């Protein structure tokens, strides 16, 4: 009795809330047996026929595949394999339209079938119990089985639950509640035994306490077939009343077990696993027959189909082929639906393929599935809430979804909606409720994805910010450390005056002189109505700025260094007086000149005044000289640094003055100004000065300590380098000046003499600074170094024996040889010189320290002498070779190196001038003129190139680049 009670209780069919009874229309297609589908010429297999990660293709286009061959393997945990449904050739792997309501493309493997239907070797297992559950799961995974009911969740995941989860009930879903669809019905009627075999495999895998098959009572034939097939085994067949959507997973579980799967839960969490009957069939085929999932039973139905029925369709078969196979004109369908009419979607493109989840294709007439009527306002009738199988409030969800109030929609459990369409079916206002929910769900998912992305971006931003801050802090710390070090250094050298006021004054004076010269040139040009007045004036302005700067520097220095020795002050004062006097004199001279030019009467008077001023200036100069001579020697530490720096500065000033002069001269020449000769002489002067500076620099370098100097003496290294640079600048400027002067000469310009004079003045200045530099060098202390530096014992043999041979013609071989020799000689000389210097320094140290015995000192002295001799010999050899090379160039080209250089420079400057002219006239001149100019320009360019090339060749040939 109790047993019967229990039994009847356990067999009880529960109910779920809501549900509808739409017209079933199953009799359209359930009357005929499952027929074979078409064998289309092309199969399209999307890589993502299932839920989860797309499969990874294993084949290449052009590869021949056999039926059942795996063509894409599962990638990741939630994925399923894909197999070739028939034999053929892979023709493409690329985007094709797929079964998706968006109508978007996805990557598919396209197989051109060959009609042979050639199988790959199959390995079925008659007794699956021989396999372990793990092996079985693997078999299912590699057979590509995914939920056949419609969702397409990979079955291997669902049957592999792990040990901690006890399965109470295995529910086989054979309800097939949607209208039209009869695929499972026919499958059960015809292949019940195979389905039961599949269920046994599932039982073996999941070991459930009970196994329930739920079938709707509108399929009596299927019920009896299944009941017959499972006679004698522990599978219970439960007949459920026809109601949509009984086939929903959660609804069926509730119907059969009374268990409610809560919001957000999975069925497995209440101890239930639900599998579709079609999946069970596929599992049987995969495990026992060794046939992977290659085809499925699909219902082709609808009023538009001549012979509706079920077909075993190869996966990847285009819907179009299936329609043609079923006697439908694919281009004349009222409405083509994939899936059932409740949850399916309208297909707009019949080229999409049948996939693992395609259970039904409806080719309906427009009377059958008409155009939906327009949406009307909600009348709040509440019918939707009555039919909702998920116990939701569709009306509320509708309002919130419509107003984009996603938060409230979620509060009303939007995400639990199963999109069954029952609410839309009953809605008297024809509101597409499901679409609203789908839209809202998509928005919610999008927002969640955005939030995840935003969090990631925030993390990355913060990490980057932290990194940048750390880098900044590190930099700042380094900067502070450097600053600290500098401050320390400064305090150490604070005793030495940092600025030589006198030198600054001198610089200022030079600058103002240059400025005045330029003013004069400008004036002269003005008097001659020269064209380049503007350029000259610009020069004047520039020089004035330099002079002002120099003056400002002097002022600053005076303010900063009140502690300077009084003697220096006197000198400075005198210097200033001299400067003032000389400038007064110059102004007077200028005035006199102007007056003379204008033919004024007072010219003679002005001249006399100028003479007077000159005498005064001379006197002051003499005084200054005396004062300088009498001035106490500055502390030894000072000149170490300052003269070099001063020299540098002077060189800079001189070079800038020289450049200005050169420019002025050039322009004057071009304009045929009278003062070209004068300017040229100035340039000459500058050149001489530059030469001297160069010589100075060389000396300074020679005397520079070979070993690293202690902190206070460290400075000269840089000034020396700078000095060298300056000398380079000055010399190049000088060369240009020489060129200008030469040109002026050739043109018979009058200002050549003036140029010469200016150059002389600059030379004198350079001499002065040279002397100072020498002094500084002499007073620089010998560098501290290890007590007994290892004196070089064997010096490389200077290759002076390789006597240079006179060359009459340039033979490339000879030239190459000479180049090599030149290089060798240079290296030898450098080495010899270095050794000599080292030895010399060691000797000096020894002498100063006095802690080395006399004999040793003598030996060292001898060594130094020897090394010096060697270095000298090497130097001589090198010089001889260079001379030879130069002579060779002359012999070869008929010109000497200097001429070549000059030619090249002249061509360049002519080119530049022409370019400027063209630029100026571009706007104003006529087209013909422009053309002529541009052709001239081209010719000049060619010339310049030739000159440049000749020079380069000559230099390179002889290895004289440096």
């Amino acid at each position, binding site marked *: 009795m109790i047993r019967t009670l229990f039994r009847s209780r356990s067999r009880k069919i529960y109910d779920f809330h809501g549900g509808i009874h*739409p*017209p079933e229309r199953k009799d359209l297609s359930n009357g005929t047996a499952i027929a074979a589908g078409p064998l289309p010429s092309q199969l399209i297999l999307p890589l*993502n026929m299932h839920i989860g990660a797309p499969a990874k293709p294993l084949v290449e286009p052009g590869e021949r595949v056999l039926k059942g061959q795996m063509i894409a393997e599962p990638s990741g945990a939630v994925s399923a394999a894909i197999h070739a449904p028939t034999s053929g050739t892979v023709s493409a792997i690329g985007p094709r339209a797929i079964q*998706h*309501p*968006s109508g*978007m493309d*996805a990557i598919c493997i396209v197989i051109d079938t060959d009609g042979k239907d050639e199988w790959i070797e199959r390995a079925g297992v008659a007794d699956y119990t021989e396999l372990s559950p793990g092996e079985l799961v693997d078999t299912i995974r590699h057979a590509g089985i995914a939920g056949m009911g419609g969702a397409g969740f990979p079955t291997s995941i669902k049957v592999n639950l792990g040990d901690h989860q006890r399965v109470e009930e295995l529910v086989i879903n054979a309800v097939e509640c949607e*209208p039209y669809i009869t695929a499972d019905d026919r499958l059960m009627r015809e292949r019940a035994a195979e389905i039961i075999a599949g269920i046994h495999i599932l039982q073996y895998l999941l070991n459930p306490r009970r196994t329930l098959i739920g079938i709707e009572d509108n399929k009596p034939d299927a019920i009896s077939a299944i009941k017959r097939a499972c006679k004698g085994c522990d599978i219970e067949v439960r007949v459920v009343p026809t109601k949509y959507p009984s086939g929903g997973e959660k609804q069926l579980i509730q119907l059969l077990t009374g268990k409610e799967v809560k919001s957000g839960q999975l069925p497995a969490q209440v101890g239930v696993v639900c599998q579709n009957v079609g999946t069970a069939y596929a599992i049987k085929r995969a495990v026992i027959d060794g046939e992977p999932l290659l085809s499925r039973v699909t219902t082709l139905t609808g009023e538009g189909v001549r012979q509706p029925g079920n077909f075993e369709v190869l996966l990847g078969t285009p819907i179009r082929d299936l329609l043609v196979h079923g006697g439908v004109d694919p281009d004349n369908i009222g*409405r083509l*639906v994939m899936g059932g*009419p*409740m949850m*399916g*979607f*309208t297909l707009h493109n019949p080229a999409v393929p049948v996939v693992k989840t395609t259970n039904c294709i409806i080719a309906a007439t427009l*009377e*059958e*599935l*008409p*155009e*939906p*009527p*327009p*949406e*009307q*306002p909600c009348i709040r009738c509440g019918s939707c809430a009555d039919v909702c199988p998920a116990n939701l409030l569709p009306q509320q969800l509708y309002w919130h979804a419509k107003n984009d109030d996603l938060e409230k929609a979620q509060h009303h459990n939007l995400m639990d909606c199963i999109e069954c369409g029952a609410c*839309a*079916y009953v809605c008297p206002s*024809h509101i*597409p409720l*499901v*679409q*609203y929910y*789908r*839209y809202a*769900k*998509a*928005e919610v*998912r*999008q927002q969640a*994805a*955005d939030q995840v*992305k*935003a*969090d*990631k*971006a*925030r993390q*990355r*931003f*913060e*990490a*980057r*910010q932290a990194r940048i801050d750390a880098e900044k802090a590190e930099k700042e710390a380094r900067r502070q450390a450097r600053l600290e070090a500098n401050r320390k250094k400064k305090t150490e050298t604070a005793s030495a005056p940092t600025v030589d006021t006198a030198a600054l004054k001198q610089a200022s004076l030079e600058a103002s002189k240059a400025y005045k010269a330029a003013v004069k040139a400008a004036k002269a040009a003005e008097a001659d109505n020269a064209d380049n007045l503007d350029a000259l004036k610009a020069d004047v302005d520039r020089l004035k700025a330099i002079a002002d700067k120099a003056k400002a520097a002097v002022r600053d220095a005076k303010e900063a260094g009140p502690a300077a020795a009084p003697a220096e002050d006197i000198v400075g004062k005198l210097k200033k007086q001299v400067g003032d006097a000389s400038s007064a004199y110059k102004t007077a001279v200028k005035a006199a000149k102007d007056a003379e030019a204008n033919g004024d009467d007072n010219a003679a008077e002005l001249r006399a005044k100028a003479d007077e001023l000159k005498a005064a200036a001379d006197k002051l100069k003499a005084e200054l000289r005396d004062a300088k001579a009498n001035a106490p020697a500055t502390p030894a530490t000072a000149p170490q640094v300052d003269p070099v720096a001063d020299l540098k500065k002077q060189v800079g000033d001189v070079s800038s003055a020289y450049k200005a002069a050169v420019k002025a001269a050039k322009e004057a020449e071009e304009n045929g100004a009278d003062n070209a000769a004068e300017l040229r002489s100035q340039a000459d002067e500058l050149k001489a000065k530059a030469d001297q500076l160069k010589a100075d620099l060389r000396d300074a370098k020679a005397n520079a300590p070979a070993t690293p100097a202690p902190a206070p003496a460290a400075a000269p290294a840089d000034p020396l380098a700078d000095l060298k640079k300056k000398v380079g600048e000055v010399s190049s400027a000088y060369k240009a000046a020489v060129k200008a002067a030469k040109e002026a000469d050739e043109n018979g310009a009058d200002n050549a003499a003036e140029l010469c004079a200016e150059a002389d003045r600059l030379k004198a200045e350079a001499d002065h600074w040279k002397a100072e530099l020498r002094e500084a060098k002499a007073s620089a202390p010998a560098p501290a170094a290890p007590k007994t530096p290892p004196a070089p014992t064997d010096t490389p043999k200077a290759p002076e024996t390789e006597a240079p041979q006179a060359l009459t013609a340039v033979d490339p071989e000879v030239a190459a040889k000479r180049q090599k020799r030149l290089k060798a000689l240079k290296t030898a000389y450098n080495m010899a010189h270095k050794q000599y210097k080292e030895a010399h320094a060691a000797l000096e140290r020894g002498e100063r320290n006095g802690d080395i015995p006399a004999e040793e000192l003598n030996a060292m002295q001898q060594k130094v002498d020897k090394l010096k001799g060697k270095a000298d010999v090497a130097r001589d050899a090198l010089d001889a070779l260079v001379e030879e090379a130069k002579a060779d160039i002359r012999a070869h080209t008929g010109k000497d190196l200097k001429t070549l250089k000059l030619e090249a420079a002249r061509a360049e400057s002519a080119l530049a001038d022409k370019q400027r002219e063209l630029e100026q006239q571009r706007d104003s001149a006529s087209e013909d003129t422009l053309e002529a100019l541009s052709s001239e320009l081209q010719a000049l360019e060619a010339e310049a190139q030739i000159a440049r090339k000749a020079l380069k060749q000559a230099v390179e040939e002889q290895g004289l680049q440096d």
Partner: protein
Amino acid sequence: MTAVLIAVAALLALAAVFGAVLGFASEKFKVEGDPIVDQIDSLLPQTQCGQCGHPGCRPYAEAIAEGEEHNRCPPGGQDTVDALTDLLGRDELTLDDEGAEDADIPKVAYIREDECIGCTKCIQACPVDAIVGAAKLMHTVIVDECTGCDLCVEPCPVDCIDMVEVQPTLQTWGWNRPAGIGQRPDSRIEVVNL
């Protein structure tokens, strides 16, 4: 009179005790940072684009907390403005996007790699380190990390960076919102009894 004094004394004693407790609690359970800034920051889209005039979303969140208007985030769109209005209880504002129609259309940077000269300028400009590459080597954008902030476009000396609209994929595609009352919803399948 004594009763009054006792009452006053009692109240004073209570005040002192509670004051001490509150003072201790305020020190002990002190909240570091400004939680409202975190809340604002979590509503901002984190594109770090600087269109609000601040160097990143967090600085803007801080500025909003200090009273700046909360409608200056074009990538967030009106939704963000509304969310901030709700959070802060301020007056409703409309988005101040200076007429930029497409400000809240998601975009990502795309480097035309053939034209990239490898100057690393865009790498330095990217606020979320979403560009990889090295000097003199081609750069490329990590699309998943790109916030579409636009900041890399301007520094590129060869103009090889485009802002490309993010195309929906099958994973990100979602159903459209129905056209509304009076329209035929084409996605609905009308099942009728014949």
